[in-house]
């Protein structure tokens, strides 16, 4: 990851990391050897897509087609073909990032000067 003072690390795991670019108002997802630039709503959509994957069904199914999950958020310049452990890793990464972003929102609200 090249040094960029506008890039802030949101969340990092062993599988990847998510950064926020304040200049472009974008998120950068580093995962599975690729770097994807995501708009805010694309990031939220990707997280919702991952959350909807039925992991129990994926684990229990003996179909070859259930060995991988193809994830293609419409409007994003990315496509993921993930195995079950990779889906879990990405889910953990996105959930962790969302928690940090929510915390960031709360801090902004607390620290912003208000009348009341």
């Amino acid at each position, binding site marked *: 990851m090249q040094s960029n003072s506008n890039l802030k690390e949101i969340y990092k795991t062993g599988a990847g990391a998510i950064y*926020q670019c304040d200049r472009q*108002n974008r*998120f950068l997802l580093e995962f599975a050897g690729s770097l994807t630039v995501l708009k*805010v*709503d694309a990031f*939220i959509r990707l997280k919702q897509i991952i959350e909807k994957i039925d992991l129990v069904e994926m684990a229990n199914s003996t179909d070859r087609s259930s060995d991988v999950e193809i994830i293609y958020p419409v409007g994003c310049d990315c496509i993921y073909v993930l195995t079950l452990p990779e889906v879990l890793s990405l889910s953990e990464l996105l959930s962790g990032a969302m928690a940090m*972003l929510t915390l960031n*929102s709360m801090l*902004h609200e607390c620290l912003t000067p208000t009348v009341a």
Partner: protein
Amino acid sequence: MKDLLRLKTSLTEEIERVLNEQIKMEAEASAMYLSMSSWCDRNGYDYSAGYFKKQSDEEREHMLRLFKFVSDMGGRAISPSISASQIEYETFKSVFEQALQQEIAVTQSFNRIADKCMKAKDYVTFTFLQWFLKEQIEEEYVARRAVELFEVIGEEGTGLYEIDKRIPKISYEDTYED
């Protein structure tokens, strides 16, 4: 670090989700009323057919109002997919009983959303919901009055004909003065 989440949308994920669910509920109510209108038409209840068609249009307007709000707040308003509506009904009375049950379900749903807004301290959305909470007073009143007509007029003889004629005349007067 900028608060990109908040800059993008004024709604939390949870509030946006429940509002989209309510959009779907209103769309399904609209479809249900249209189906009831068709049943009334097929069975000779002309006035009730017109009443339910009007109700169907109103529910769609409710849906559009919610839809606009979610969009205006920077959220993702989802045009809903709706399940197939019931086509046949047991009796003329059961149609109105089902309509009343639907309105009760909508009221309960809005109460739950308002509760979520209070707990999340989203007073902007809570204020927006006031229109719907007030509207539901009228909706339940009219639906209940229609069911009560079956007791008051009775179903014997020309009762059903009289009830059908009376249906479009039910109106809610939002005043405590006589």
